[in-house]
């Protein structure tokens, strides 16, 4: 336990002396310029920009910090699996006519009584 505290104090003193890494000249200005570009794009609000931003936000929601292709490929794989399952096991509804509801039988149906004279239609 004492060793743990001693290691903790040592690491604390050491890492506190770690010098801050100075940014390259103009780096912070470049960050601000990137903000300006983003802001201009946001204000212009083109459909493509909105779609791209939406996609980025969506990806950020489901997988924070991941590159945009990661959630996109996960969704694509899910879509392929779904389509594969759909192709392997066709729809539950059969193409054969449902018994008791054939076309022949439905033609004998009429909205009106068969006894009704045709001229009344």
């Amino acid at each position, binding site marked *: 336990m004492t060793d*743990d505290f*001693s*290691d*903790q*104090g*040592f*690491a*604390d*003193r*050491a*890492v*506190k*002396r*770690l*010098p*801050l*890494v100075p*940014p*390259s000249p103009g*780096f*912070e200005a*470049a*960050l*601000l310029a*990137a*903000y*300006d570009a*983003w*802001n201009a794009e*946001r*204000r212009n609000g083109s459909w493509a920009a909105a779609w791209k*931003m939406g996609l*980025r*936000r969506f990806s*950020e929601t489901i997988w*924070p*910090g*991941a*590159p945009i292709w990661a959630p996109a490929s996960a969704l694509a794989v899910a879509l392929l699996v779904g389509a594969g399952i759909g192709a392997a096991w066709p729809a539950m509804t059969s193409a054969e006519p449902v018994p008791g509801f054939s076309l022949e039988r439905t033609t004998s149906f009429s909205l009106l009584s068969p006894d009704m004279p045709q001229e009344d239609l």
Partner: protein
Amino acid sequence: MHDPDAEDVAKAGRGDRNAAARLIGRHTPKLLTVARRMLGAQAEAEDAVQEVFLRLWTHAARWQPGKAKFETWLYRVMLNQCYDRLRRRPTAPLEAAAEVADSGPPPHAGLDEGVLGQEIARALDALPERQKAAILLCHFQDCGNIEAAEILGISVEALESLLARGRRSLKTRLAHWKGLAGDGR
């Protein structure tokens, strides 16, 4: 829980350039230092920080204060950026890594701040990436254990284990710097 950044994040999301400048000024030095220590190369660290801020701007308008601390989110995105970049690198064989010569200065008893800083950086660089991240978050960024565990996406127990191993390695590598041993030790 008061989040000193929450107001500026919301303002930056609405297009307030001054708020964006404040966030950049407040967080860039430490983000860059963490990225530099994680990635090793200055240019790559700056690319990673730039990507983090781009993500911040796109996320800022939807930021919900009180849901999570802004810095927790920021460093999580930062470390994910670093891990992605590290994963994309070609891996060197382990045998080759073991033969890398130590180009550092000879051991000193005194404390030359510049040389010491370099040697601490080198000792950190030698740690495995998860231990390094844990050490940087807890000792450089001053995160509490719960927050650091949340950033790293691990349990507090796992974080403590990473910290214990990382601290021990640091102490072993920097043992010859007497001034770091503390009072009476």
